[in-house]
């Protein structure tokens, strides 16, 4: 899942980047609303985490511009402004959630995940593919009651494919949602990761959960 963090505090950017990356998100950073607008025109994000008080154009201005471009990306406002008026204004102008600073990192992650579930119209945090269970809250995969050991990146690929079940996902799409923008990754990296996932989740006698569509990408049927 790819996130854009629009925050002018470099220190907060650093901790958010580290924490969210560790949670398996691909994170892009922007210090100003103008920089963020450039990024959203180039890349697709699952969730934008937006500060309100930014140098130059503020977060509300960014939100207005984003929605006027018909961009439907989920936006979570993360701001020190805790007035009801500000919260109402943010939500009315198109934000999907509002969290005030100081915040608990775990809550931020939970809210991001809730927005992601909403994005994929999936209210249940547990996805089932046959006897394979993906617990999106615990970041855990199990099969026949046995927990499987997947790395964060592996889990992210499986999660993305599962959330887009029935649709073919290209290698570029997977790379785009797995790595931060500007980070070059070859398609081989994706293939290697998919290979590892298959190795961990497939049972020898059964059909593979992830199918390869030659020339296109991967799909979970």
């Amino acid at each position, binding site marked *: 899942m790819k996130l854009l963090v629009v925050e002018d505090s470099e220190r*907060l950017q650093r*901790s958010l980047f580290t924490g969210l990356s560790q949670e398996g998100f691909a994170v892009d950073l922007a210090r100003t609303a103008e920089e963020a607008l450039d990024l959203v025109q180039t890349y697709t994000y699952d969730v934008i985490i937006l500060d309100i008080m930014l140098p130059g154009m503020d977060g509300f201005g960014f939100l207005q511009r984003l929605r006027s471009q018909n961009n439907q990306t989920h936006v979570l406002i993360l701001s020190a402004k805790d007035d009801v008026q500000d919260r109402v204004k943010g939500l009315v102008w198109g934000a999907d959630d509002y969290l005030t600073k100081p915040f608990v*990192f775990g809550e931020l992650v939970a809210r991001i995940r809730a927005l992601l579930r909403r994005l994929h119209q999936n209210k249940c945090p547990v996805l089932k593919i046959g006897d394979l269970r993906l617990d999106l809250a615990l970041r855990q995969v199990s099969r026949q009651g046995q927990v499987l050991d997947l790395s964060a990146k592996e889990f992210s690929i499986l999660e993305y494919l599962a959330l887009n079940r029935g649709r073919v996902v290209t290698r570029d799409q997977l790379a785009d949602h797995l790595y931060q923008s500007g980070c070059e990754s070859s398609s081989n990296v994706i293939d290697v990761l998919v290979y590892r996932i298959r190795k961990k989740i497939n049972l020898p006698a059964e059909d593979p959960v992830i199918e390869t569509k030659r020339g296109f990408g991967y799909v979970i049927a």
Partner: protein
Amino acid sequence: MSSPKTISIRGLLERNLLLGISLVLIAFMTLLGWVARSVFQDRFDEAVLDEAEVLALLTIQTDQGLDLLFSHTIMPEYEDPRGPHYFEIWGPDGQLLERSHSLQNRKLLENYEYFPEPVFTDLELPPHGPCRLVTLSFSPQHDSRSSTTENSADGPPPSLTIALAERREELDELYSQTLWIQGIALLCLMALIFWQVRRGLHKGLAPLNRLGQTLASWGPNQLNTPLQDPAVRELTPIINQLNGLLKRVADRLENERLFSQNVAHELRTPIAELASLAEVGRTWPENRQAVEGFFEDVGHISQHMQKMVANLLGLARSESHRIQINKEELDLATLWDRVQERMRLLNPNAPAWRGNLPAVSIVSDESMLELVLLNLVQNAVAHALPPADLAVAFEEQDNHWVLSLSNRSEPFTPDQLQDMFRPFWRKHPGSGDGFHSGLGLALVEHYCAALQIGIEAHYVAPTFSIRLHMPKNQPDQ
């Protein structure tokens, strides 16, 4: 320490009004009593005198001597020893010519005296009490039937003196009744006036009481609601003053509220940073490089917060006039060199300043002025647009010196130039860089005020400048 004695306007007015009105009433009643007594006395005296004159008229001088025409008439009022009438008629030779039976063995006069005018006196005539006595000398009438030619040639008949007394019990009783009536009237009037004064004061002071009750129930949230004018001429100026005071208090409270809000807001970001760094660092401690960077960030955040707290304390001390000012003679050029030196230590890459300050001697607090200049220099370096074009200038104007620090900058509106000295003001609201607390210029303004230095901000594209107006001879404090 004893608290000042509380006075009551109502009590004071009541006491003074009642005392004043009572005194006037008593004086009036006394005068009325005196007038009534005089009138009654005069009437009584007139009656007594009339009686005496009647007796005098009935005293006739004949050839044979005096003929008292009434001596053969029965006059019961002169018969009874209890009175009420008594008389004596004295001849000029000291002979008592006639006296009423009512006198028995008592006397009205001891001897003959001549009284050209009637004289009234009070007389105690035991055992029947006080009497009113009139004494009058008169010449008896001649009997027209007698041949008095020879006698009349001898001159006027001799003057007799009549003393006539009448018991005055009725008069005294009338006095006494009048006094009682006056006393009762006085008490009734005083009771009426007391009631009226109290009622009048209660009604008159009711708007004041209502105002007091309203103010007693006034809370901090109602400070922006002006007090209603009760349409009482005397209270209108007080209400206006109170409304002005309430507005000033409300503004002050609003400023304090805003200030607290700003402080809380300024602390939110560093606290959020600390919380986030701590949580992420604790969750993934194996990422050593990141965790080391987090610790460095925590150090910077604590420095920033420490600076903010120090500035807040400085502001609070300045606002409560608790800054110790030690004025001494300073060399401005030396001070400027020291500021430059400190700036180089803080930021070795800071651009150099154009211009210099002359070796002028001024009287000021060295450490405070150094802090002011350092703050302004830091601001200029931090916010200048490249090329920074930092310049310092000094000139003499009338009776003061003007020190000017300028740099290239983004444009400023006149409002921004005024507002920049307010705590936590930032040109761009979201531009908290984590290093500047937004309190520097507010502190500079407070320190300048304490040092009696005027401070102004100007912008003439593309240059922003701060000017300090320093009096040449600052008085010692």
